[in-house]
């Protein structure tokens, strides 16, 4: 969780220093979701994430230097600097992409799991999406699909209470994400998403059930976005007091308190924190020294047939 926090803080610094070029969506305050879910996946298991995906991607095992380079649009980024924050993917660790289109990852995850089934593989697929995503059609289509075909998908609704500047509940009918999943016969569990141990336990159990071939599972994790929607959003649409109160529920402090209560020495916690910051600062410094990709990459990897430069300029 410290690694994610440190990465996000440096990404925000990069935005202010104009090293990060496009929009970023920090997950500060939501680290227990990534840290509780992703370590329960094996390297070859598959993850699909959202526009707010830095934490999930790190927790799936992606290299922070490659990620920082991607945010800076540099050569050696996960996507060669062609995707940026909202399109980070690392197929080498089974991370099949963040997505710039809300809910689009849900149907892709269903298909990834469909391929797993067709190929008789033992992988599972994990799809993380926000509370706003449940109001798009692909949520229904993807969940129905996974259930009908009995696919090994763990759907994780990372509910931070907001869809951009809007309180999601104000725009959502009915009982919310879990109820919608259950209405399709998908076992769903609602968990305090700021309690990393609870998330870990729920994810472990759900993933074990997937591996036993029981069809899709659903986790609804309650958390809170402690920063703005994007790095540039001051989040003036919510009262200061609300955010201050929520800082008291910071998942990292909660995890640290648990460890201390269990007798873990404070010094070793500080050490872990410092190591995380040192790692991400090193990634930041190395990324800023990396050149932009060569311009010929602008027209590479478009498609095999046809010349992308035809009739242009």
């Amino acid at each position: 969780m410290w690694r994610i926090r440190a990465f996000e803080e440096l990404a925000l610094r990069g935005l202010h220093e104009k090293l990060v070029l496009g929009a970023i969506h920090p997950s500060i305050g939501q680290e227990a979701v990534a840290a509780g879910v992703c370590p329960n996946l094996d390297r070859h298991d598959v993850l699909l994430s959202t526009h707010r995906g830095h934490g999930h991607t790190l927790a799936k095992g992606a290299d922070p230097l490659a990620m920082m380079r991607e945010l800076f649009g540099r050569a050696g980024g996960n996507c060669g600097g062609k995707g940026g924050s909202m399109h980070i993917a690392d197929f080498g660790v089974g991370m099949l992409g963040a997505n710039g289109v809300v809910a689009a990852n849900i149907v892709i995850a269903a298909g990834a799991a469909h391929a797993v089934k067709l190929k008789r593989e033992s992988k599972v697929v994990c799809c993380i999406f926000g509370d706003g995503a449940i109001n798009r059609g692909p949520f229904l289509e993807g969940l129905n699909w996974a259930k009908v075909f009995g696919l090994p998908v763990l759907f994780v609704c990372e509910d931070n209470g907001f869809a951009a500047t809007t309180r999601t509940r104000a725009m959502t009918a009915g009982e919310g994400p879990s109820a919608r999943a259950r209405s399709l016969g998908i076992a769903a569990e609602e968990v305090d998403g700021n309690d990393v141990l609870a998330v870990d336990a729920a994810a472990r159990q759900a993933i074990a059930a997937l591996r036993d071939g029981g069809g899709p599972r659903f986790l609804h994790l309650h958390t809170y976005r402690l920063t703005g929607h994007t790095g540039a959003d001051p989040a003036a649409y919510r009262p200061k007091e609300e955010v201050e109160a929520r800082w008291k529920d910071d998942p990292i402090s909660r995890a640290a308190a648990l460890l201390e209560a269990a007798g873990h020495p404070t010094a070793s916690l500080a050490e872990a924190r410092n190591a995380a910051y040192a790692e991400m600062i090193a990634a930041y410094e190395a990324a800023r020294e990396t050149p932009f990709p060569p311009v010929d990459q602008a027209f590479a990897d478009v498609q095999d047939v046809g010349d992308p430069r035809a009739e242009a300029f």
Partner: protein
Amino acid sequence: MPFMTYAEASRAAIAEEMRRDPAVWAVGEDLGRGGVFGQYKGLVEEFGPERVSDAPISEACIMGAAVGAAMMGTRPIVEMRFSDFALCAVDELVNQAAKARYMFGGQTRVPLVVREPIGMWRSSAAQHSQSLEAWYAHIPGLVVVCPSTPADNKGLLKSAIRCDDPVVYMEHKNLWGLEGEVPEDDDFTVPIGEARVVREGGDLTIVSWSAQVHVCVKAAEALATRGIKAEVIDLRSLWPWDKARVLASVEKTGRLLIAQESVSVAGFGAEVAATVAERLHKALKAPVKRLGAPRAPISYAPPLEDAARVSKEMIVNTAEGLVRT
């Protein structure tokens, strides 16, 4: 060579490719009963319901699942039933399938074929008749194929299935029953991006694709009786399109007429016209001319539906006008 219909040819293509490559599978509504036009008949019996899969009426999920399954090493054939319904899955096709390879920096490919039947057919009216090929020709990352004969439907579909790019494969609904000779050979394919010269001639070049090609051929026959030799070129694919073949022909004839069933405005004919105008200004003996549908929805009543068609007579008259100037 055996005779078969356009629909049978596509079925043969899929069966051969599914036998050849276990990664190929098909998914869409009603495929288990052979598909709504019978273009999958018999396939579920041979390959089973996993590889010839039914789907819920979830176009976005059919397309999106195909994207995920393609990124995981399978080669899905996606059935959209009517190109009109594929509009429910445009995000999955345009934002996801067409972009994944590029925006992920070459980490993945999305080798899927999406079959989107197009065209006017038996009073299908405004939501079941559209020809939307130009939409997808405009999208980087996509391949667009519009076969006009049974042989091409087999050879091009096989090439599309083997292609590592997402291919929008647009069969014309009015051609399902069209018969023709089709090579039986398993290795027979038609390369994507090569036009077919349907008929040679030195007086003018007529460029078309899909079902409209057959109208152009009839027009060329009529023109021949009036002493005008038209060269008819079937583009077969719009991206990539066989620019070299069209330019060579127009260089020879000095005249170009493009005929398309789809709406003329911002259609693919405009692309062909502009390319020829840019490259061959000096060789042209007459202005380039386009014929396409008016910018109106397609009607239900047959006389109104017909009013939107580019007819043989229109092609003949326009061609004559170009040659006699």
